[in-house]
């Protein structure tokens, strides 16, 4: 469904430029949940913005269902890393969630119903009449997730979507993502810096190198389904994969970089 080939991007030009993507190759099949991990600042959000058609990459190609991405692909939803800025402060939480559904041609009662359902899924059924700025950071993040889920996109892009919530809520949201994916046949690209999370929710874990980012690892997660927070995390396969992803994220460490007693 998604074919990314030799994607490159450089921010700015001249001496102050930053080479963010250094030729990323990635293909995602329909219905797959692919997690992308990589060091901070390596270019994960840049990759996601290219897929969403919000940024014209410097080179390479993104094919969505066989067609090159020009502008925003149809049937796409994004949960931005900067969730609070992506919610509209002049609208109630419920209106924020239901606004994108106008694109789907739903009438008002059905939009409201879908918004309430999505808000209930993220545990915010009471917050619909409030405004985003009246909520805590973690609650705002859940509103952003609810808005994307209510839209029922064919492709869901999530940029560190569970970063601001407590551990318990985080697990609930991970499980919600897995459930929703099962029900609605969504393809999901999920960026995270949490290695355990990537292995727990992903069908595949794609590891990016530091800038300029390239794919340094693409691991299939063959853990028993359905995933379960306790059992899956103590499965030997989980432990092995977690270590493998961890090593890939840290990257090759040349011996010279380790501080020796003389230099300390």
């Amino acid at each position, binding site marked *: 469904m998604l074919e990314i080939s030799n994607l490159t991007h450089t921010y700015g030009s001249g001496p102050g430029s930053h080479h963010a993507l250094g030729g990323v190759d990635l293909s995602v099949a329909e219905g797959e949940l692919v997690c992308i991990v990589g060091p901070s600042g390596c270019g994960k959000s840049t990759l996601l913005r290219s897929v969403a058609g919000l940024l014209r990459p410097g080179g390479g190609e993104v094919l969505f269902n066989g067609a090159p991405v020009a502008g925003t692909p149809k049937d796409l939803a994004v949960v931005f890393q900067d969730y609070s800025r992506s919610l509209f*402060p002049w609208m109630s939480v419920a209106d924020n969630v239901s606004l994108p559904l106008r694109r789907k041609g739903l009438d008002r009662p059905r939009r409201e119903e879908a918004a309430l359902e999505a808000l209930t899924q993220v545990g915010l059924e009471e917050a619909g009449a409030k405004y985003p700025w009246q909520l805590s950071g973690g609650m705002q993040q859940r509103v952003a997730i609810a808005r994307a889920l209510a839209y029922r996109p064919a492709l869901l892009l999530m940029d560190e979507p569970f970063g601001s919530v407590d551990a318990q809520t985080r697990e609930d949201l991970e499980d919600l993502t897995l459930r929703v994916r099962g029900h609605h046949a969504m393809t999901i690209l999920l960026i995270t810096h949490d290695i355990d999370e990537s292995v727990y929710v992903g069908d595949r874990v794609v590891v990016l190198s530091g800038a300029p980012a390239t794919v340094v690892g693409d691991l299939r997660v063959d853990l028993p389904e359905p995933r379960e927070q306790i059992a899956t995390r103590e499965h030997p396969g989980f432990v092995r994969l977690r270590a493998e992803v961890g090593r890939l994220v840290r990257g090759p460490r040349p011996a010279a970089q380790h501080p020796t007693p003389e230099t300390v």
Partner: protein
Amino acid sequence: MIARRLLDSGPLCGALGAAGLVGAWEAAGRTGFISPTVFPRASAVLSRAAGLAADAGFLSCVVSTLGAWAIGLLLTVAVAVPAGFLLGTLPGLERAFGPVFEFLRPIPSVALIPPALVLFSDKVDMKITLIVYAASWPVLINTMYGLKEVDPLAKETLRAFGFGPAAVLWRVSLPSTAPFIAAGVRLAAAVALIVGISVEFLAGGAGGSGIGVFLIEAGGATDALEYIVAAALWAGVIGYLSNGLFVLAERRAFRWHTARTEVAR
């Protein structure tokens, strides 16, 4: 303790300040510090002002000024907001017209009255045209400034959900800019009142009406100064009330804006 509490209450404190000034004004007249022939006493002006409130001639002047003010303000919004959006969204247009605007903007509107007198035969048309000209600047500038402040991520969010440029303008740029536009309209309302009365005053009585015309015509009366100061007092009250109403309406409509900036502080 009680004094502290009095000073904490904004309106009460303001009323005290005003009463103090009026008291000093009256005292200056009574002690002979300012002779009533040079400047009338507070009591005389206030009783004239009360009389004007029931004076049909004065009230029709007020209605005439307020009518031109309201029409001028509506036209201002109708002209300046779309112009601000055009200039704010098309950088080429802003580059082309920016320098012209920077030249025109500092010209005092009162300086335009003499040429306007030559151009217009109808005084009401002239008054409204000058009001629109002068009041458009704050609205235009605030609209353009507000557009620059729209969060790009808010626009991208809507684009990501497949909305086109028109929907982004209507659903993100406009609501996000609205508080800035409203503040511009509040400033424009004050400018419109000043320009309206100035035009009435400078363009003269024949064929005109309004508070400014009332001021000229009162000049011939025996108690001219008392009438003029009393009428000016009413003009001040009207300006004060309109500003207060705008502030109140803004607070209600844009609670999301003030609440957010308060959080950010």
